[in-house]
């Protein structure tokens, strides 16, 4: 971008969520990510920024795209990257979390990227280890790098974020992507709407400063951005949603529903998509869809985050915990 903020520095030691980041913090990361996009599009993609640093990907939940995205980001910056997938079958996953964290901490990593099924897991880890912690998704709480990559994608396509109408649709209740995006995009001045059935979207969400809609027609009217969320199969049990066909009929994004939004509205999805459940294939593959660009921005944003936190390495003399 034209006017980055070369003097401003990212002040935080960890990236545990969007909560706690200022608009300026976010803009620093987005501007750094623009540079990373350029690097990633060169033939020579490697930088030495993190040479000699160790990055551990600690994933308690299966993930292909987020984990590989962080791995690639770390490698492009020259870090040594280790992937740890901890598959836990026991109910007490948390015991593994602390035990594993202490073990890894003893190996003196510089950065730990963690994904865990429980909200607050990244905070807990950050209190126990000496290195920087990046939250790659904790339960239904936050997924900050996803929100950053979404913001970057939006800004590159629309030239701005302020004033845009963003409609996030689907299973808001269980979505960390929705929470992080609500926080980030409203901090940058977008108008946030959330759309979904009451079972997946309690009206208390209004208190987070968003407009709540129960139908796609009104929710998508004049939207600049339509962000679809993945609907987990298990929501069909337990009375959240009666069936996938009923869900698709009323909340799945097809061409008709998309026509309620602005003509040039962007269609986004954090992936992986359930085609025919929350999104029709025709829409997912349409020119309005920026789903693949989101993946590319994912690597860039993660490079930016790693580099921003690396400014604090080795982790001496830092007392802020955000």
């Amino acid at each position, binding site marked *: 971008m034209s006017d980055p903020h070369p003097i401003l520095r990212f002040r935080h030691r960890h990236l545990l969520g969007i909560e706690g980041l200022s608009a300026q913090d976010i803009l620093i990361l987005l501007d750094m990510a623009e540079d990373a996009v350029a690097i990633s599009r060169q033939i020579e993609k490697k930088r030495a920024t993190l040479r000699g640093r160790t990055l551990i990907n600690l994933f308690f939940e299966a993930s292909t795209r987020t984990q590989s995205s962080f791995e690639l980001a770390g490698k492009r910056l020259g870090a040594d990257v280790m992937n740890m997938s901890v598959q836990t079958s026991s109910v007490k996953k948390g015991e593994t979390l602390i035990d594993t964290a202490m073990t890894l901490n003893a190996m003196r990593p510089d950065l730990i990227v963690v994904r865990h099924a429980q909200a607050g897991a990244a905070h*807990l880890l950050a209190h126990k280890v000496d290195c920087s912690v990046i939250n790659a998704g904790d339960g239904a709480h936050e997924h900050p790098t996803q929100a950053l990559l979404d913001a970057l994608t939006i800004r590159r396509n629309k030239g701005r974020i302020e004033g845009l109408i963003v409609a996030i649709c689907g299973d808001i209740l269980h979505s960390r992507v929705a929470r992080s995006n609500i926080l980030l995009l409203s901090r940058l001045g977008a108008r946030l709407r959330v759309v979904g059935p009451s079972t997946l979207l*309690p009206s208390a969400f209004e208190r*987070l400063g968003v407009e709540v809609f129960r139908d796609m027609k009104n929710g998508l009217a004049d939207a600049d951005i339509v962000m679809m969320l993945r609907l987990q199969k298990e929501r069909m049990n337990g009375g959240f949603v009666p069936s996938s066909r009923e869900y698709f009929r009323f909340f799945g994004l097809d061409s008709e529903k998309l026509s309620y939004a602005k003509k040039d509205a962007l269609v986004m999805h954090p992936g992986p998509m359930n085609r025919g459940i929350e999104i029709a294939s025709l829409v997912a593959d349409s020119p309005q869809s920026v789903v693949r660009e989101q993946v590319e921005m994912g690597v860039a944003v993660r490079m930016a985050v790693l580099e921003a936190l690396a400014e604090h390495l080795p982790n001496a003399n830092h007392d802020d915990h955000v």
Partner: protein
Amino acid sequence: MMKLSTPAIAHQPMALVNCRLAQTGVEKLQPGGVLVVDGVIRDVGQAVVPESLPPHARVIDCGGDVVAAGLIDLCAFVGEPGGEHRETIASATAAAAAGGVTTIIARPDTNPPIDEPAVVDFLLRRARDTGRVRVVPAAALTKGLNGADTAEVGLLLEAGAIAFTDGPRSVANARVMRRAMAYARDFNALVIHHLEDPDLAGEGVMNEGELALRLGLPGIPREAETIMLDRDIRLVALTGTRYHAAIVSTAASVEVIRKAKSAGLPVTCGTSINHLTLNENDIGDYRTFLKVAPPLRHEDDRLALVAALAEGLIDIIVSDHNPQDVETKRLPFAEAENGAIGLETMLAAGLRLVHSGDVTLSRLLSAMSSRPAEILGLPQGRLEVGAPADIIRFDPDEPFVVDPASLHSRSKNTPFDEARLQGRVKLTIVGGEIVWEAA
């Protein structure tokens, strides 16, 4: 008469003089003293001055401190049997003594549970041999706390159980609850119930609302409590059982209690010191020591509880003392166990409400002593002639900072970690014997 694990009676008469007396039923503190002979309060009031005492009496000058009846805590987990890594009767009663609690009603959700006369007997013997304060077991309402089969109410009463409850579990099945209540009614037994519809609470781990949404944690709606309370009140009307709602935590529950009481039903209720002095915001960044059942609610609920306490609608305050070790608390919030310790900090935390002007000292103390005594039918908990000499001395204005390391409980999961409180207990007497004296 109920069996009590009364500590050995001290034979030397003892007198507390130069006190401000918190006497049951008297709103203002009165200057005076207390004379204790043979473990019983022999005299109390202005006449108790050094000149009037028997010549060999031990005299303690209280320097103008408040002297009140020892506290009665209707809900505490004491660890035995089966949870000795979390707490023992020795450690729980040491904490109680230091906190001014002179009678503990022990929760029955032990391992094995207190659903057998032999276990009641075990607990009473252990309390007699290792306890510093009185410990009286509550027994299970259903066998093995299974929520299905009524426990041996009659035999358990004979063994010394004081009330019937399934501890932290709710009896979800209304037919089972009706029968248990009807059966307990014939023995005039007190039924204490934890209020949470388990289906509606579901996977919830904190109060449902904005904060739960922000933290990404599944919520427990207030209705999980009120629906259960509503149901219970109707069953009380049906069966006529003496019923005590263990912990009410919402403004709506207070209104249900108000209606039940004005209808003349034999209903009482309590709340915990945590629900009176903390709210959901104290959870902050997933602090598991603030994870309790029922969950901490919104500030509006807390204010309604405080008002109901002041009014007397909420009868009593419990510590809900629930020791948890590091392994069950150092986990992601949703996976951590419920519970906070509270025996040792209950009085000082409660005094916050007095210092803020929301509740009078007299109401606070009655909610922790004479009122639970009335509900349970115990002779102690009153500063009056003829009552057992369970007495505490404290300066309600003395400031201190809670240091978890110095607490006596075997577990350190206090939600008042490093909190600034006022009113440390200086002296605790049980049955005329000093069981705690602050350094």
